[in-house]
């Protein structure tokens, strides 16, 4: 997959949240040199949800750097991850509003 990432980097807190959510699901720890690719990686976009959820839970929003890290770990173009993040935020906002909590 072609990944054109911006120079934004995740904070240590954001990185830890994403890795904690994905290490178990992917069965591997993150290594800058060995990002997954291929059919297997392209077949698990559904893991965007737990990854973005983890960031949102940890820091309350999804920064560009966090989005880049999620995109890189899951081999998903950041534009697609952003679209997923947008949908997720929308769902979480609605859920939060329904529960009478603060909006994201």
């Amino acid at each position, binding site marked *: 997959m*072609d990944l054109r990432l911006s120079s934004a980097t995740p904070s240590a807190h954001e990185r830890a949240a994403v890795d904690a959510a994905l290490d178990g699901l992917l069965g591997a720890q993150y290594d*800058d*040199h*060995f*990002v997954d*690719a*291929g*059919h*297997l990686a392209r077949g698990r976009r559904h893991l965007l949800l737990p990854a973005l959820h983890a960031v949102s839970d940890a820091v309350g929003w999804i920064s560009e750097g966090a989005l880049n890290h999620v995109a890189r770990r899951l*081999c998903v173009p950041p534009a697609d991850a952003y679209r997923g993040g947008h949908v997720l935020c929308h769902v979480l906002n609605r859920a939060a509003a329904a529960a009478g909590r603060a909006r994201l």
Partner: protein
Amino acid sequence: MFGAGGGTSAYVEAEHADLLILWGSNARETHPIFFHHVLRGLGTGARMYSVDPRRTSTAQWADGWLGLDVGTDIALANAIGREIIHAGLVNEAFVRGVTSGFEDHRATVEPYTLERASGITRVPAELISELAHAYARADRAQICWTLGITEHHNAADHVFALINLALLTGHVGRYGSGLVPLRGQNNVQGGGDMGAIPAKLPGGYDLGDDVARARFETGWGAPISPTPGMHLSQMFEAMAPTPKETPTGTPTATRRLRALYCIGENPAESEANATHARHLLEGLDHLVVQDIFRTATADTADVVLPAAADWCEYEGTVTNSERRVQRVRKAIDPPGQARPDTHIICAIADRLGQSWGEPTAEQVWDELRSLSLDRHHGMSYARLVEHGGLQWPCPSLDHPGTPLLHARLWETGAARGPAAPFTPVEHVPPADALTSEYPIRLTTVRVLDAYNSGVQTGGYASPMRRREAPRMDAADAAALGIADGDRVRVTSRRGSVEAPVAFDPALRPGLASFTPHFCEQVDVNVLTNDAWDPKSGTSEFKATAVRIDPAATTHGDLASAQPVAGR
């Protein structure tokens, strides 16, 4: 391969293969048209492996990445071959009926166990085994390669190692199965087909082919020596003074090559060990450069002949990596005094007492067709237009061209033709050895929006363009006290350059890279090794041993600023 200097398969076959191995090829950037076919194949379920020291943008699409050490490809291929043999996955009927030399090949690969190959290549043994089984079990599988295979001091042996794998498994000569050399430039295939290879006549005939040579002698009205001329690396060796004793005993020096007519080539920047190459060019008695821009080589010339950019300012043909000849059409007039290459060459011939006139591009092509009877005779301009290009061999005007080469290997009886030979080859490490003084392996790489030494691509802007920089692993840099963007000095056994460094996660520890595209920023080939392959003449651009240090100075590049065309 097997007597034909061209790939076996049409690009479209990549869409229908089960398995693609891109070996020493970042086709995602350097062959974007071919890679569109790869993407279609991946979209319908094809699996892809990338064999490359760097985790390239091609590897980012791969199901498996074999990140081998530079120059260990033969050890890897031999281990894959051994694993195929030991797993009982050899296509026995194909090997028995079509090939020769299998037993020698088996004996050669036998010592290349998975463990030994893993030690040489640093690719995990299980990954080598996985690729061996995937390749041997696939119904249709291709091996595609680019300069990562052919820019080594033993380049031809690298190619033989890959061919051996195809012969073991029968992945050649069938639709979807093949050997695909993706050429280093857009018309390398065409240049070779037109006689730019010293041992070949136009049309791919050997100089030693008496029948073919006699036909060309008749057509051209001149004798042709059956002895091959010099290729580029031999020419540069011949430019060097050779000590010689005179009859009086006084030592002197002679040069076997003292005059050079250089057409569309910029060796002052593109030759390996460029400082040495420039010294040799400056020592020539006479240098003529014919090019579309004032290149660094033109800057040292006695005569510069301004040429048209034939791809848009004149007519002609181009032949791509699937052997497809296509028409090139004039879109604009050349500027100033620039003239088409053929017109300049013919005008020189006229001044030398010949009478070549000023033939049109189609007349030149038709002459070629009248002599290249097997490959090009059926490719009239009208047919090239009608069919959107034709793939050689195309021997007659009713021939449809040949998308799939060597299908004969699957015929029976006499139609099968001569046997396809295994060529046993051994791993030999790069000539420029890593030592404690030069511990980092530098490899040259290419990017999507630039071309060779930048003559043709330096003149326009690109949103992807970046400043040229040595790229290296962040951990390596940290150990040297270097931060991203710091100015560093890169030193090889031949020279040194300075530039700001860039970290690149595609590079593992111990590996660094440069592009050759921006010589005015970083004179990369001052570093590279001019050790060359005796079989192909190619220099070992891919494997240079270097040391990287923080730069002591903060002023401009130490490398002399070369004039760069188009900028």
